[in-house]
């Protein structure tokens, strides 16, 4: 319960988060490899688009602000396996965050003709 409350608090403040929350020095290239090596791609998709049949939610575009992202990987809300400092450093997280931010957002559904036939 405590975890949920703490997370909720972070989410509530997320709206106020600003660009400087993004960690400096994240390497998108290294982050891309980590995103695969650490298994994030399995549940969230290589582009953070989310996984089918309840694997994991979308985490990109509009990712959570950096501190929330960090918190959610360390202390997930519910079903996600937690990644601790023992194996995944803050730098690793920052790199993965940089990778997500480096992705080109997909077009909106309304702009995809195939989705509107």
């Amino acid at each position, binding site marked *: 319960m405590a975890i949920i409350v703490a997370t909720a608090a972070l989410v509530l403040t997320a709206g106020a988060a600003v660009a400087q929350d993004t960690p400096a020095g994240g390497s998108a290239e290294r982050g891309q490899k980590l995103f695969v*090596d*650490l*298994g994030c*791609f*399995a*549940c969230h*998709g*290589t*582009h*953070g*688009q*989310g*996984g*089918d*049949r309840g*694997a994991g939610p*979308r985490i990109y*575009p509009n990712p959570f602000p950096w501190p929330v992202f960090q918190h959610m990987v360390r202390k997930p809300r*519910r*079903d996600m*396996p*937690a*990644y*601790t400092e*023992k*194996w*995944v450093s803050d730098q690793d997280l920052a790199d993965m965050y940089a990778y997500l931010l480096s992705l*080109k957002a*997909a*077009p*909106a*559904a309304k702009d*995809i003709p*195939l*989705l*509107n*036939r």
Partner: protein
Amino acid sequence: MSTPERDNDIQRRAFLKGAAAAGAALAAATTATAAEEPRPAPPPAAANLAGDTFVTRPGSDFMVDVIKSLDIDYVAANPAASFRSIHESILNYGGNRKPEFLTALHEESSVAMAHGYAKARGKPMAVFAHSTVGLQHASMAVYNAWCDRVPVLIFAGNGTDATARRPGVEWYHSMQDPGALMRDFLKWDDQPASLQHFAESTVRAYKIMMAPPPEPVLIACDIELQETQIHAGTLSIPKLVLSAPPQADEKALREAAKWLIAASQPVIVADRAVRSAEGVRALVELAETLQCPVICTGNRMNFPSTHYLNLSENRASLVANADVILMLEVADSWGVLHGLGDPWKDVRRVAKPDVKVIHITLADFLMKSNYQDMQRFLPADLPISGDAETSLPPLVDAVKRQLTPARAATLGQKADGFRTQHREMKERQKAAAALGWDASPVTTARLATEVWNAVKNETWSLVVSDRVSWPKRLWPTTEYHQMLGGSGGAGVGYSAPAAIGAALANRDRGIFSVTLQPDGDLLYAPGVLWTAAHHKIPLLIVMFNNRGYGQEIMHVQRMANLHQRNPKNARIGTMMWDPHVDFAKLAQAHGVWGEGPITDPNAVGPALARAREIVKGGAPALVDVVCQLR
């Protein structure tokens, strides 16, 4: 041109027609002459057995007559000595028509083909399997059919007379009790000791198999019975008359109707509820009369996805707010009301504590204990034993009789709200499908959308519809045959052969078949591709190739993190990355048109268009698309 087989065939058909017209129990084609034929005297010891003695009317001919009397179109089998005689009887006595022999390269494929076929065709296919090893191979597929409530008519060759067994292998391949291997997931089985016994037990097995809930059955074909000259005086085949399906008790249905009419937020959850287009229509009528949203679990096409009352993707909120839930043949009723956390097994109640559950199901009639397909126990408030499809029309009647005009008017006012919810639900699905649209590997949503675009102008059927959820979420599905669900028992290896079996049924009915084929599933027994090529079964196989066991990498990842150990090792034993399997080549090696691997999402559509033309020409075609894991 008149050939012996054709004459034979014509005679037999004329005979069967006559017998049917007489309205009597069918007597076998063999019977008349067999009655006059004396039992052959054992040849003198010095005779040339090979040259002088023949079995011109083997018992297996009569077995074929029995099978023919059941209107079975196909029998799938991997050949084996224990049924060599009936195999030959099908070809040369039966003319290899009704049933036609389908060459299967694995017994699991035979049964899974029959499983898919039965769902698409609405009637069963037969399977032959070698006793011991063949049945062992077949068993997982039989379990899938059992869990999916689908009929499969299995025949096992077996030698009971120990003194007649050839030394060595034939002993290894004989059983005292073939049904024992699968009795936990067979509805019935028998090992007949005479041809007459065979006829009666096979017709009985068929009748039992088809009574809802339909389930697999097994009949052992004794080798001696098959291979020995028919000498019985009179053989007859009992006529097949199926039992009327069990309809729920009228009083219970009246009570259910009362609850549903009075409910403020009722929901219908339909699982393996209907088996036909009529069933879909009946459920639509019920939902519309009550203005009650419907959640389909995906195991059957129960309700059109285009209907505004199909709110399947809003399941969580609908269940959470429901005051009455009508479940229709729901396998996991506890799972509708609850979730269970993993790994801490914390129970997460989804529904209100006082929700009232009505459940129309035949679950209480499947009295088996060992395999746990019964799922966790949920005591329904109004449990009603009955076949859901059969019970829907009387339930609709009960609702209509009790519904006052005033209440009907109030319920009618809900329609606009549901229409809005349905529209918003569809928009949400589209928005989610757009995410990662241009990604490589290709997203499963993009894959499903491209496939829809390729098949939308055909009379299509997605023959395995649960491996990717997007078609259920995005495709306008209006007909029962359009989505045939999944394996039932989650025994992986179902999808490829079941798709081919269903495609065979669809071929005969002029329906275009398409499937989203997981890579791991196909690699269990890829030989079924050859079966599709050989028998010219048109099927558009679109690989959902995530290059691994997607579900399993997630499990191992969970464990690594939970154990606080190296999270980078989860791919070992779960992914197939080094080397990549080349599915286009795999297809080509089996005589199937193949293209890929495709990694560029923009290349998927054109490849599908090419493959579609091959399929329309009457052959299978495979397009290998490298996909996201989920």
